[in-house]
């Protein structure tokens, strides 16, 4: 009788202990995952991915990490240099204000387009939107976290 009761006690305690063993292993994995994510440079606020670029500079598929202010154009002093015949020297600027991205046309000759419609002055950008400058198309994406 006593032996049976003790055996059941032990089984119950092992069951509870196993629940916590599982939780402990999961939490350890979660913490490791979060630490690994924290080690990665997360200072970037977003990424700009080149989806089409006939001139090959920048090449299609390249992605740029963005700072709060990013200038785009043909001039070599821009943050992102677009060697495209239809891009102006100082073509457009991407800015991160508050919690949102904005694109601003800097008086370019051929204009800046977002999802196919021309930007007039300052325009908000959402992640996933496509910007066209000259013949270069770029897509704004969230930073990899």
């Amino acid at each position, binding site marked *: *009788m006593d032996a*049976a*009761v003790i*055996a*059941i*006690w032990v*089984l*119950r*305690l*092992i*069951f*509870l202990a*196993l*629940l*916590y*063993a*599982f*939780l402990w*292993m*999961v*939490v350890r*994995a*979660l913490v490791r*995952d*979060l630490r690994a*994510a924290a080690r990665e440079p997360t200072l970037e606020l977003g990424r700009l991915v080149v989806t089409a670029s006939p001139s090959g500079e920048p090449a299609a598929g390249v992605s740029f990490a963005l700072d709060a202010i990013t200038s785009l154009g043909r001039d070599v002093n821009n943050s992102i240099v677009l060697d495209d015949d239809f891009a102006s020297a100082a073509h457009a600027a991407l800015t991160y204000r*508050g*919690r*949102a991205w904005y694109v601003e046309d800097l008086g370019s000759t051929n204009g800046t387009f*977002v*999802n*196919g*419609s021309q930007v*007039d*002055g300052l*325009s*908000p950008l*959402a*992640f*996933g*939107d*496509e910007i066209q400058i000259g013949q270069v198309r770029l*897509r704004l*994406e*969230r930073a*990899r*976290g």
Partner: protein
Amino acid sequence: MTAAPVTAGLRAVGREARRLRITPRFRGRELTLLVIVAIALIVGDLSLGATRLLKEAQLAGDQPPPDLAVLAAPAILVIYLIGLFAVHGALVLAGRRTDQILLPTVGLLGGIGLLLMIRLPQDLAGRLGGLAQTQLLWLVIGLTIVVLLAIAVRNDVWLRRYKYTWAAVGVGLLLLTFVFGRDINGARLSLTIGPFSGQPSELLKVILVVFLAGYLSENRPLLQEESTRLGPFRLPPLPYLAPMVAMWAIALGIVIVQRDLGAALLFFAVFLLLLYVSTARFSFVVLGLAAFVVGAGLLYFVFDHVRTRIDIWVDPFADPTGAGFQVVQALHAFARGGLIGTGLGAGLPSIAGRPPIPALHTDFPFAALGEELGLVGILAVLGLYLVLVERGLRIASAAQDEFRAILAAGLSLVIGVQAFIIAAGNLKLIPLTGITLPFVSYGGSSLLANSVIVGMLIALSERTREPLPPPRRPGRIRRLLDRGAA
């Protein structure tokens, strides 16, 4: 002799896999965790079987049998474990770099629920068969859904592009239930179409999150604008508050027509959380809570069924054998459980062969776990739900765009909020509402809906960079802002 066709078949499968660029990928973490889950469930079942034998012997006045080491329902447990490892195997073969923690966590919750169903009187639900058998059937179907979604969903265009269609489907389901639903225990929840019956509100919570993810990711910049002022609050343009008001009205409608307080609370809470997640504006939450208080106050004074629930919550001991019976019994169950519980199978002295709480298998599994596993056990169960929510939010933070981020956050918050509402209801922390404890409660609709959620979360967690869908045409916001600029 039979080896030749088999190897030929394997080669064909291999060729097909290479053509689709599928390479199996070892999922070590998932396997380790699943092994612990399997051991834990087997030990739990052993303790349940031994307790049961001992109780039978005591009732008969005999000595306990010398060999107590028996599984309570070996076939059911083994089938469930085989199902879990089969899902793992399928995910390994599919070779996607997806989350490895969700499946074992859900597997453990489902297994604990299954142990509870094995332990309860088998004729509680049974139209199809025993309680545990039916639950096993639903769990296996649920696992199938998880694996299908986790492997097959690679693209979310079908979700994001048709968000208003989804919303229409959801409202349609709701209206169908309003009109054709059957009343059970005063709540009009279940809908029967031909041979099938189910609770549409379970599916509705998934549809709601899909719609909200689509709507909020598209209109976020606008909702963050501050053009209307209401006292100390700055609000977005008034037309864009319409969905908020609509949500509030839907929640009220569910309470009034369906008398389903739990679903209404769940929908409204998830809606407010998602609004906060996507806009980071606390004023929305304050405004939403104010609307909730006003709505709840109105309902309390106008509708009897709401007032009954609140009165029971305030003082269940006013009528301990009538209206407050369930809640009082649940509180006693927690008290009997104490720190480490009475042990699986040892709780709940039944009254004439019935458990003391009528809806134990659907609405009060948390109380049953509290009695049999004690405070230590239910804290572990709550920890498992926290893990699910953490994984969901982590998947959201790593998502490539806002739709996926809000979708992942919303799906995991549905599970978290639902677990909180029913656990807190069982504990008399908030008024009791009849919703299920995800993955633990008995019930097909609930298990299926939650399986859909887990399957989609696993699919959304994929690490490789998939091409995003083509950019949408300039939306309403853009046109509006253009007009404003001009």
